[in-house]
């Protein structure tokens, strides 16, 4: 992940800092450590010597004199902005993101925020973070560990120490490291001075003081003056990565149009931070990442939830059917409901129901009345919707159910991510109740997955469950904006008025779908419901043979969707020893791990599933070409068991992580390497 040059540079700086720090304590100790590094880290120390850096530690602030500041080119870098949940770190991260987009890097982000809206200030549980991984090639993940951490208080430093590299640059607001805050964070000693940050390049800047100084002439009160301290940190990071700040200022001018003093304050603080970073020469060199070779076109940043909502709106427009969303707010799915609610201009109706059940049942009603009907939820909500999904299966009405998976069971980990609803999506209903199951693989792919889910539901007259997850929902990535007209057509089998041959359960020969006779259409009055239906007529039927026939038809209808979905692709050789398999939201991290392993010369292939029910037609063949199959997923092994059930002839292994967190590239690589060498 981390580029070698960057690593070396950081090491050089860190070691320099360490030496300087130890000098400050004891010249003798320093000598020992220095010697130790020379022996252990020859290569790194050579870099250090080449650059001939000398440090002096002064007034709690690092100063570095260098011969000439250099710009180091990196392949990619990961920055984590962290602070109290009131410190505006999400905004800081997003503003950095905008500048990243302008220079043309590819990127992916992930916000890390507490379940509590405003946990006690200054505590670990109140820490809010935003991580961005940006680079000069395709970026598929938000990065394992951060190379740069911005920590606005002791709690955010403590909370993130496990999420940064051993040699990460740490920027802190030294003004926040007062006794009271350190106690709140659970520090017994001051981490800035007790040696616990050894190995890092620490830049402890009195950000609050300098922020107040920067806005002094504006006459703001103390509280307002401090508000823009996050922009001071942003200014520093912009400098560090050779970015210019004019676009950020433009943003202030738009965002705070009605409040010129706020524009002015943010502007002054941002520039102060930028110049501070320059003046103190804290960075031996600044960094630069070349634009990524992305396909030509118009781009934007999207989160998974935003992309999901937009995919539905696009499907509604393309199918000519008004969008109806019946939903109940639930973390981490609510943003989809919020987004659709904004777009009544497209005749999209977002109905916030009184509960999860009313959410889906209103959706079924809307579908009966001819809308492109969807409902959105997370795991606990999917449980509540089970019975109603069965009704949609029985009535063979098109609906899409989005499950933005989170950690479970029960309330579980509302703001964390997991892939543990797969079995629930496949089988979590009474009776034989097959539905199409899709799983989006990235934030941008949520757009296409929502679109495809709508198309399949309407064209095949069946409920579709679309699985995304908390990481996709809130994470963001670069999205090449498509033209809606370029998306595949959507042609639902709408029954014509007065169709003399219409029968409610008469099926299409190929797809086995029934026709969609929208309530209100002349000449097609009919009744449907949850009781078993007689073949063709749809009358209530308790006939044993009819029930068996209808049960098989409903399954067959879903199975035949395999003729209408893409085949499974393999990254790498199409046969061999080891095939790594994933599904849904783990795509980015798995792909990154496989690409890196292959670059390092390992022979390993990769297949990723977006279509779960039915599976792509060539699945059996793809799997059969490998001696061993490693299925990686964020649950106890639900997909591997599904594969074992479907294709028992293969040799499966599993790698699972159930921590509410995505896989790290490094842990995947380590595991795969051990398998390959073992």
């Amino acid at each position, binding site marked *: 992940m981390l580029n070698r040059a960057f690593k070396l540079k950081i090491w050089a700086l860190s070691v320099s800092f360490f030496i300087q720090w130890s000098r400050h304590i004891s010249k003798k100790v320093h000598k020992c450590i220095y010697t130790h590094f020379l022996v252990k880290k020859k290569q790194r120390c050579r870099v250090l010597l080449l650059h001939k850096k000398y440090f002096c530690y002064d007034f709690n602030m690092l100063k570095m004199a260098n011969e000439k500041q250099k710009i180091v080119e990196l392949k990619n870098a990961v920055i984590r902005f962290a602070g109290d949940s009131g410190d505006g770190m999400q905004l800081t991260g997003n503003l950095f993101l905008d500048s990243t987009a302008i220079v043309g890097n590819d990127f992916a982000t992930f916000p890390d925020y507490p379940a509590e809206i405003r946990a006690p200030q200054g505590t670990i549980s109140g820490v809010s973070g935003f991580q961005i991984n940006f680079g000069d090639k395709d970026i598929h993940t938000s990065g394992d560990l951060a190379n740069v951490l911005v920590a606005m208080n002791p709690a955010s430093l403590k909370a993130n120490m496990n999420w940064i590299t051993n040699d990460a640059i740490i920027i802190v607001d030294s003004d926040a490291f007062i006794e009271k805050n350190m106690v709140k964070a659970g520090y017994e000693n001051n981490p800035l001075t007790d040696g616990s940050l050894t190995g890092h390049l620490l830049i402890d800047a009195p950000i609050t003081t300098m922020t107040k100084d920067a806005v002094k002439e504006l006459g703001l009160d103390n509280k307002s003056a401090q508000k823009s301290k996050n922009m001071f940190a942003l200014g520093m990071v912009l400098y560090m990565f050779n970015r210019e700040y004019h676009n950020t200022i433009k943003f202030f001018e738009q965002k705070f149009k009605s409040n010129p003093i706020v524009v002015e304050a943010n502007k002054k603080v941002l520039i102060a931070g930028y110049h501070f970073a320059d003046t103190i020469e804290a960075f031996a060199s600044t960094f630069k990442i070349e634009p990524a070779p992305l396909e030509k076109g118009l781009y934007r940043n999207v989160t998974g939830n935003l992309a999901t909502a937009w995919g539905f709106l*696009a499907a509604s427009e393309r199918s000519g059917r008004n969008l109806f969303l019946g939903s109940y707010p639930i973390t981490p799915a609510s943003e989809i409901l919020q987004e659709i609610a904004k777009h009544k201009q497209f005749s999209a109706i977002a109905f916030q129901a009184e509960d999860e059940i009313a959410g889906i049942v209103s959706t*079924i009603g809307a579908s009966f*009345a001819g809308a492109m009907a969807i409902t959105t939820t997370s795991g606990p909500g999917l449980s509540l919707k089970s019975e109603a999904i069965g009704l949609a299966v029985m009535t063979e009405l098109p609906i899409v159910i989005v499950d933005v998976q989170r950690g479970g069971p029960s309330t579980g980990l509302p703001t964390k991510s997991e892939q543990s609803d797969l079995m629930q999506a496949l089988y979590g209903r009474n009776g034989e109740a097959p539905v199409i199951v899709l799983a989006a693989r990235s934030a941008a792919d949520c757009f296409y997955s929502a679109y495809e889910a709508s198309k399949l539901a309407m064209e095949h007259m069946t409920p579709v469950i679309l699985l995304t997850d908390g990481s996709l929902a809130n994470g963001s990535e670069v999205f090449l*904006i498509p033209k809606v*007209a370029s998306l595949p057509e959507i042609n639902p089998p709408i029954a014509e008025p007065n169709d003399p041959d219409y029968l409610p359960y008469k099926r299409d020969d190929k797809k086995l779908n029934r026709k969609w006779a929208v309530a*209100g259409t002349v000449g097609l009055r009919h*009744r449907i419901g949850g009781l078993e239906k007689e073949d063709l007529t749809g009358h209530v039927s308790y006939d044993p043979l009819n029930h068996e026939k209808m049960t098989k038809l409903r399954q067959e209808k879903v199975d035949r969707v395999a003729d209408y979905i893409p085949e499974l692709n393999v990254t790498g050789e199409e046969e061999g020893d080891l095939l790594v398999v994933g599904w849904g939201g783990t795509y980015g991290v798995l792909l990154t791990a496989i690409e890196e392993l292959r670059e390092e010369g390992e022979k390993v292939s990769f297949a990723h599933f977006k279509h779960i029910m039915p599976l792509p037609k060539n699945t059996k063949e793809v799997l059969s070409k490998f001696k061993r199959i490693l299925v990686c997923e964020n649950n106890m092994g639900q997909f591997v068991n599904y594969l074992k059930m479907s294709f028992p002839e293969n040799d499966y292994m599993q790698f699972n992580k159930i921590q509410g967190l995505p896989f790290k590239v490094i842990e995947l690589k380590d595991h795969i390497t051990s398998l390959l060498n073992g």
Partner: protein
Amino acid sequence: MENVINTAELQLTKKDFESDRMVKWCPGCGDHAILKAVENVFPVLGIPKEKFVVVSGIGCSSRFPYYMNTYGIHGIHGRAAALATGIKLTNPELSVWMITGDGDSMAIGGNHFIHVVRRNPDINVLLFNNKIYGLTKGQFSPTTPQGAKTKTSPQGTFEAPFNPGELVMGAHGKFFARVVDTNIKMMTQVFEEASHHKGTSVVEILENCVIFNNKIHALITSRETKDENQLFLEAGKPMIFGKEKDKGIVLRGTQLEVVKIGENGITEENILVHDPTTEDAGIHTMLASMMPPAFPAALGVIRSVKSKTFEQAVWASVAHEKETSKLKSVDNLLRTGNTWIKD
């Protein structure tokens, strides 16, 4: 409703709404009479037959859609209100009739019931209240009188019952009426009024379950006692009842009271005159609460207040957004905010 057509032009009759399915309710069940009344009403409303949608939940009454030749959907237990809301929001031109029972709408669907009333979509709710679970064979429901012995309350229930009218008023409902299953004419008349009301109209039908709760409403419905225990309310008319039309309702302090006309100086002038249109639901709530033996049961339209419907509000917002939004297509939307070009 934009497509109201002259009834004569439509030339609809009862036959147009009769289904070819065998009606499988128990002989003597009140459902039969209610079905007849609905079949009386649909042809005269001036609505084309394909615009009717009958929805239901689960229970004996909820088989209703299968016995009507309209669009129909038999849903899941308690959730008919949500089905109806989805249908009406999607296509406001449809005439949506929700059939539910006291178990379906007061127990498992109690939440949906109060919320549909609160939101006020233009749907007609026929609540068949036989105060018992019929389809599951005789367990008490949320409207079963306290102390009643049923299969699941062999010592008598320990629970205070709901009065559906009070729930409607509590949820700021705009239309509530009550009828008895023994009077098809009354049902026909009130169902028609419910249909014409724009907004959620709840009609409670005091219904007999001949198998599991026979004669539960006998005091109100039997030939011998009904005159003394029924007060049929009509807008602008005094609340007079009794075989001799000699009893009435007055407001004494903050309470309703039954008085005899001609006694203690009471004349017809003193009797309360029914006004179903007052925004304040105080008197309506008291009327809905009246029950024998202390009071007659109030029948007819107890409350009917004009108000904007849910779907009117939603679609007015759609129209406004269409007119004012700069986003004319999803392509526009995808290009809002920060975008950048890669050459």
